[in-house]
């Protein structure tokens, strides 16, 4: 690994050499490379990134969802942050799924710590992780019937009595 230079281009190149047609688009935002990948291959990619002796991005920092209601067919995004501790290189992987059928492969068997992160993403956005051992709500009440972090749902609690909405512009 010593002669490998962790510039964004080399990383991108190495990934695209390995996986043909995986990367839909890439973008460097504030010194972190973001790659948008096909949903079907995220599992493979993350597994390979972990085991690859050169890149060795073997620390999962974060999994999170994001909701773009206008982005038809690709409403829900899942973002993975992986981190190579030795190389101190961070990579952001993003994949989009349609809101009607938000299914993506679970990576719990790669990173056991992904378990709750995926549950949280499910809880907030309703993204289903295929192969997750126990995909159920984690933070919210079990009988909640919507996914609160989606953009269309309200934040405020309807039972608040001591506020006059007129003064807050909403």
């Amino acid at each position, binding site marked *: 690994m010593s002669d490998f230079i962790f510039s964004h281009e080399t990383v991108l190149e190495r990934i695209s050499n390995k996986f043909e047609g995986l990367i839909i688009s890439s973008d460097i935002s504030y010194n972190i490379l973001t790659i948008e990948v096909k949903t079907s291959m995220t599992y493979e990619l993350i597994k390979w990134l972990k085991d690859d002796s050169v890149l060795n991005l073997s620390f999962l920092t974060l999994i999170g969802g994001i909701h773009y209601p206008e982005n038809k067919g690709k409403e829900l995004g899942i973002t993975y942050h992986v981190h190579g*501790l*030795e190389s101190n290189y961070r990579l952001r992987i993003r994949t989009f799924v349609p809101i009607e059928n938000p299914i993506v492969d679970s990576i719990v068997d790669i990173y056991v710590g992904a378990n709750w992160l995926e549950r949280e993403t499910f809880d907030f956005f309703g993204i289903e992780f295929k192969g997750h051992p126990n995909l159920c709500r984690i933070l919210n009440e079990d009988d909640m019937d919507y996914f609160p972090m989606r953009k269309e749902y309200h934040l405020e609690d309807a039972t608040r009595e*001591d*506020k*006059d909405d007129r*003064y*807050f*512009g909403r």
Partner: protein
Amino acid sequence: MQSLSNRSKVVSNKPMTFLERMYLPVIFGGMWITFKHLFKKNVTLQYPEEQKVFAPVYRGQHVLKRDEQGRENCTACGLCAVACPAEAITMIAGERKKGDEDKYREEKYAEVYEINMLRCIFCGLCEEACPKEAIFLTDRIVPSQYEREDFIMGKDTLVEDMNNRIDISLRQMTGKRGEK
């Protein structure tokens, strides 16, 4: 795993010495420490009788300031309400009528100004937001109450009394550049 930072140090692998294995020496050592505290002066602040002097910038109960002539500074611009993360401030603006010039400094004033002290988180953003230096947090604490309604503080409690002005100059001066 190799070292990531090259400045790590293992801190927890010191084996127990024979004396430490014997329980009693270290226990006596610990008891000696607590024994010394027996004769230490207690640090307790007996609250209702003794009161601590808060930092001048302490964020406690709000005050609506008046200016030197006793006119209310507030012009009901609503910035404090907007800046409030807890949405605890409610105000209704009114036009100043003729003859009220000695009551309100600007042409607009707050007819109703209420802060819900139960919602308030005392973050101080309203004080920062106010362009007229009308609202300040002070180093007074908000007392607890029996009823929820008592916490909605209107202008009667918030606006300072001219006979009993609340000094906030220390607060304004603290941390200004040049002070060391």
